């Protein structure tokens, strides 16, 4: 009798376990409705060809998505009911996603809330690809995407082997009538400059994007000035820039009229796939031989 009960118990346990397994695997294999709350994540979802699962994106992803997706606002100020009205299965964001009260409500409403890393290094990017791939069931695609990135980073390293002196590259963000901002440490611009094999002379003294005086820029003695494509098109040419900021003439960049541009969208939302492409391209621009 007791043995029988035990047996039934075991069978039941097994059944529960099996159904749990079936349930979990079926839910993860079914095409989910995903909300992406971050440009870095949206970009990877597209690169993994998982965009058919996407139902909405946050404001920072606006420029990345093709087609009309509902926007769910700023990823730190998400609204629970708005998100739930899109009936998502999952929302993927960085650790900055919030507020906590909204995330809590989403979880209560049966929405999976997944946080992926938002680091600024290549290693973080590779990990993020794995994380997003696991959540969208695109693990095979992730391998080739990661291989592609590693290849690009290796290509930069190989190219750098032939160079003896690293160049100093200063990224400037210029809005009309305002003092220019430089990219200090902990910015995507800084990461891209370093990835491309150059030195960011502002990184030691400045954090984030900050306005600094032209005098300080001269002291940094950059070899190359880096601008976003949009900034340059609003200024014109390097000569126009030198007219605007005459002190720059006293830097190697000014003397040699060494100016490079970067696609500004590669700098938004952390180090992403486009940032790697830009780093590879800039590496060839900085070291042209």
């Amino acid at each position, binding site marked *: 009798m007791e043995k029988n009960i035990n047996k039934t118990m075991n069978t039941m346990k097994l059944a529960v376990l099996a159904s749990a397994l079936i349930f979990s695997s079926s839910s993860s294999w079914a095409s989910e409705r995903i909300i992406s709350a971050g440009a870095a994540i949206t970009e990877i979802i597209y690169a993994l060809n998982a965009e058919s699962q996407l139902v909405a994106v946050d404001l920072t992803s606006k420029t990345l998505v093709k087609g009309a997706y509902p926007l769910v606002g700023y990823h*730190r100020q998400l609204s*629970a*009911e*708005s998100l*739930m009205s899109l009936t998502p299965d999952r929302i993927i964001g960085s*650790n*900055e996603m919030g*507020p*906590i009260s909204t995330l809590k409500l989403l979880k*209560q409403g049966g929405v999976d809330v997944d946080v992926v890393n938002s680091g600024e290094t290549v290693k973080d990017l590779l990990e993020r690809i794995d994380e997003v791939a696991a959540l969208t069931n695109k693990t095979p695609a992730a391998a080739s995407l990661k291989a592609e990135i590693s290849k690009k980073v290796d290509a930069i390293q190989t190219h750098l082997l032939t160079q003896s002196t690293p160049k100093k590259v200063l990224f400037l963000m210029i809005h009309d009538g305002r003092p220019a901002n430089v990219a200090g440490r902990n910015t995507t611009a800084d990461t891209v400059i370093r990835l491309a094999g150059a030195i960011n002379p502002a990184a030691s003294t400045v954090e984030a994007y900050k306005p600094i005086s032209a005098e300080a820029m001269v002291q940094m003695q950059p070899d190359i000035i880096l601008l976003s494509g949009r900034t340059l098109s609003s200024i014109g040419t390097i000569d126009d820039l030198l007219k605007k900021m005459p002190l720059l003439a006293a830097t190697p960049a000014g003397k040699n009229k060494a100016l490079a541009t970067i696609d500004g969208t590669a700098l938004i939302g952390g180090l992403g796939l486009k940032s790697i492409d830009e780093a590879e391209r800039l590496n060839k621009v900085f070291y042209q031989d």
Partner: protein
Amino acid sequence: MQSRRMQLQRLPIETLLPLGIGLLFFAITSSIVIGPMDISFIDSIKALIPWETDLPAHIQLVVNQIRLPRTLLAIAIGAILALCGAVMQGLFRNPLADPGIIGVSGGAALGAAIAVVFFAPLVVNYPLILTLGTVPVFAFIGGALSTFFVYYLGTDKNGTSVTIMLLAGVAIGALSGAALGFMNFIADDQALRDLSLWSMGSLAGATWPGITLAFTTLAVLLWLFCRDANALNAFLLGEAEAKHMGVNVQMLKRRLILLCAAGVGVTVSLTGIIGFVGLVIPHLGRMLSGPNHKTLLPMSALLGALILLIADMIARVVLAPLELPVGIVTAILGAPFFILLLVKQKGRMS
């Protein structure tokens, strides 16, 4: 013409109060029924009934955990802001006085900025700080400190001068504005964004403890302010006149200022800065029910609740699934109304 305006604008409180309560009830129902998620009228109402448990869980969640708390918070916050605005305008005998005039808003904004800029980076490592609510606590402390300072500047051995307090409020406001500017300067991009959103106010963070706090504050303020309604009426004649009528002017000023600071401090810490309600609603109340504080105070509370509730509904729905900060909506609604008021006033004076 004059008599027609009287008929149109001033209604007896016996008519206004039921009318206002009816409208508020209608607005509450709408606020619970309307939202970005498509839930039928019947289902929304059903979800409120505790023993109706056969509804889908997500509908119950949306109605009971999102729409209902938000609706209640809007009512309490709107009422407190309008009430404090009415009292401040009475006390300072200045139609432009709003709760911010005693420096509480500026100080609170600065407190919040300090919390966002200096403590937000810590939150990543110590999530507990966030759950303890650094921003609300700092906002409250900042508001309380600056009010105290403004009051201190305006007070000497002869009592408190409302004129000096008014000017001190402006000065302290400018000072905290400068400090806020500095905070903006050293903040990183995310902190900047957080700050700007905070200063536009939002009712999205409604929690039950917050709602309890807001309603307790409202009940206490309404009771204490209404007790002083007669004294405030006397104050309309002038400070000296009020004194001769037997009002303990100094005590009254101190009490009302502290109560307003506490009231606004609570609202600011719960929802951020929501402008224009405290400034405009008392004028609307005066237009409808006259300057007698006995009717003006409850009317202002009622109208404040009503208007903020409507503003929040607009904020939730107009750009859905995006959500507009409610402070923008109150400003859009309030500013034209205020201009209209000025134009009318001009006509009356000439």
